[in-house]
Structure formats: structure tokens, C-alpha cells
């Protein structure tokens, strides 16, 4: 299942490392990664495949949310289709 992970919050050292380590440990394959700063906030988006992860969608989503709390960012895991539906004909 292709998903989009977004990380939004105040920029600090090690955000990407922390998220990527978690994803690697849970066998989530990152397909694409991009980041930008909007209004002083760090915005990162990853397209990731969770097909081979031993964890279910809900488990990954809530653990990522917890990591977000630790690093003072909001981390969301969403299925990719909602973005395709809205932005692609």
C-alpha cells in the first residue's frame, strides 16, 4: 500500500534521521522524499510503501504520531489515493 507521510513542525536537528530510522526498523520502503520550509515551519513529505511492514496501517500511524510528539512535530500517515484523487485527472 502506497502512503504519504507528512512531518510538519519547527525545524531541528535529526528529524529526518528519527523518522527514517523508525521506518527502516519497520520495513517501510521510502520511494520519494522532499522537504520545504513554509512560514518558518519545516515540512517534509515522503511517499512510502508499507506493504512489507509487519505492522498494520493503524499501528504505524499511531507510532508515527508518538514520534511526532517526541520531536515536537505533527506526523501524519495517509493513504496516497486521496492526493491522487484531488490533484490528478
Amino acid at each position: 500500500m502506497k502512503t504519504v507521510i507528512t512531518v510538519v513542525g519547527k525545524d531541528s536537528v535529526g528529524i529526518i534521521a528519527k523518522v527514517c530510522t523508525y521506518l527502516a526498523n519497520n520495513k517501510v520502503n521510502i520511494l520519494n522524499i522532499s522537504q520545504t520550509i513554509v512560514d518558518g515551519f519545516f515540512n517534509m513529505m515522503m511517499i512510502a510503501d508499507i506493504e512489507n511492514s509487519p505492522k498494520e496501517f493503524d499501528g504505524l500511524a499511531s507510532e508515527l504520531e508518538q514520534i511526532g510528539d517526541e520531536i515536537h512535530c505533527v506526523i501524519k500517515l495517509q493513504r496516497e489515493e486521496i492526493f491522487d484523487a484531488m490533484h490528478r485527472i
Partner: protein
Amino acid sequence: MIQISEVLETNNMIEKENLDVRTITLGISLLNCITDDLDKLCDNIYNRITATAKDLVKTGEEIEREYGIPIVNKRISVTPIALIGGAACKNPEDYVRIAKVLDKAAHEMGVNFIGGFSALVSKGMTKSDELLIKSIPEALSVTERVCSSVNLGSTKTGLNMDAVRLMGSIIKEAAEKTKENDCIGCAKLVVFCNAPDDNPFMAGAFHGVTEADEIINVGVSGPGVMRKALESVRGTDFGVLADTIKKTAFKITRVGQLVAYEASKRLNIPFGIIDLSLAPTPAIGDSIADIFEEMGLERAGAPGTTAALALLNDQVKKGGVMASSYVGGLSGAFIPVSEDQGMINAVNEGALTLEKLEAMTCVCSVGLDMIAVPGDTSEATLSGVIADEMAIGMVNQKTTAVRIIPVIGKSVGEKVEFGGLLGYAPIMPVNTFSCDAFVNRGGRIPAPIHSFKN
């Protein structure tokens, strides 16, 4: 591949501009429940609803989590009960029993409303229709989640003025019976002209007899998203304005289409329609009136409001039909007063009157919605307001509706609080010149000449 700007745009719509899917409504036919034994009928209805809808709320919540889009309501609509209870119900109290069964099933399933305590009487009333209509005030006062609607006319049949007259007194009685509770009964009761069979929105949802056994209909929303999009085209001409509305409506509707498709697949129930409506909520910024202001009107109700609404309604449809092959229901812009903070402000400041709202209903998707009027408004006046609104629907071949609340014990200048999505409403003045002799004539207003297209 999806770009970061697109992801951020979608998530901003959800987090900051109140984008949501307003409702997944599961339509259930109760035709196979019919029997002449009332106890058996009640059992059949309860079993049919609870067996069919058992996974509705769970599935809605799963979709919410996985896509990160709020699905505000999960609801059920059923076949108009006047058609189901005809053989078993001998008096209005029998219909009240069915309403209680619907309410119990709604609680059991965790849905916030169940629609279809309804009668379709656009040309004439059967005995069963009349009994159901007479049971509405009691039914709405002893239940919490049951919604009721009555179709009083259509372009093809004309207006059933006997039923229009009856509904004036039924609305008044429903207000009286729930006066301890801000006359909430009237907020769950709507009358229609040209009622659609596949409307997912309450209070007027019912599962039409033209529908299959079960169907999933989805209502989308997003006034806040629309207002934000229009902010970026301030001062441009109407072509740009129209184009921006269309593109935004497309995006909103595509999300609804995705949710409808997923819900249909997971519940193994066919997908019916998307209702591509701009439905406001009392949340600040989630307002149709704010869109008018963004379009260049000082307040909703200012001269130009009807034109602005006509443009908005039409462009929403044009953008939406590109996004889904099956659109239906009410589709367009809703203009309820109590559910829209901008409309409430416009009424309080004297910018928006009942008469202007009536004019706006000629070009909006539904009609006079969630309007609070003084409690001493006469039954005949309520019928007169309804007749006017029904006439607009009949002649313009569109759905119109009236959801009006005569607030017992209150008068102009006061307000009534319904809470939740229903919001609060200032009491609006009503023209007090009499229409008694007109509405008491009885009979039908014939169908307009342009209805004869055969």
C-alpha cells in the same frame, strides 16, 4: 508522482479550512418488511436496519483514519414509512411506535440521524400518509435521532394544498410538543417540492422507491475551502471567479468520490450518488455567507446576493459533475441560517430578511432552511410561507424545501439554541398580513404548463 505542494494543499484544506466529507448515508429499503401485524413489522424493521448497517460506522471511521479526512456523520435513510406502515398502522400512535423502533436502531448502530419518517403526498394523501403526518409531532418529541420529511408537490403533479395546510399545523404542533427543548422537533422536520430519492442530507433524507435494496450516498462539503480559494482571486473578473469555484468544487468532490467508492467496496453495497453540496457548519469560516463576502458583498443579503448565489451554485455543479459520474441528491449551495455563522451575523445586522432568503432559494440548491420565526406565527402563515417556497420549486423544476421553526414563547430579537451541527438562530420577523382565506381553500394547485413534456 504527487508533489509536496499538492500534499500540503490537501492537508491545509482539511486542517485549516474545514474540508470534510459531511456524511456517508446508507439507504435501506424497508419494502420487504411490510406486514399487517404491527409487532412483526417493528421487529422486521429493526432487524433489517441493524443487519444491514452493522458495519457502517466502523467502516466510516476506518476510511477517516486511513485517508486523514474527517467523515462528520454516518447516517441511515429508509423507505418512506408511510409506505411501510400502511397495512399495520391503524392510528397515529402506531406510527409513533415505528418511530421509536427507528430511533432505537439508530442508537444501536451509532448513527446520529435516521431519515425516512416520511410521506410522499405531492398529488394526494392516502389514509396511511395522513396518519403518519399526524403522528409526526409526537414521533419527533419522543425520539432523538429520527428525521421526518413530507413531499408536498412536484413540477409534474402541482401542489397538494390540503397537505400544505396540514403541515402548517403539524409544524406548529411539533414546536409545541418540543418547546421545553428549543422546539427541536421542527429542526428535524422538512417539507419538500420535487424531493429527490437519493438525498444523503438530513433532515430530508429518505430511501426512494426507485432505489435498490441498499445504496451508499455521500454528501461532500467545503465552504471554508471555497472561501479560501476565492481569497486568491480578489478583484478579478467573473470568468476567473467562475473558473476558481469550478476547480475547487472539482477537488472537493473528488475526495467525496474516493470515500464513496471505498465505503461501497468495504461494505459491499452499491454506490449511489455524490451530493456535491456546499453545506456550511456553525464553525467559524465554514460559511456560505463568508463566500459572498469574499465575492465582494458587504454582507449576505446585500443587493447582488442572489446573483452571487446563482453563480456559486452553478459553478459548484459544473466542477462537481466532472469529478463524479453519478451526482444527485440536492447538489449545490445550502443556505441554512442557523448552521452558518455568517448568515446569523447577516440576520442580526439586518442585512438578510426572510423575503431575501426566499429570492435566494430560486437559485440555491434547496430552500428556506433552519429559519426561526416568532412562536406566535399562525399555522396559516406557516402554510403560506411553505406554499410560496413550493411554488418556486414547482415552476423552476428544482427541489425546494422549508425547515422553519416557530419558537414557542420567543419573539423577534431573541435567539434559539439547537446545539451541535444545527447551531443557533436569531428569530426573524415574518410578514403578518393574513393568508388564511387563501391557504384554507383546499384542493390542489395544478401543475405548470411547462411540465407537459410528453
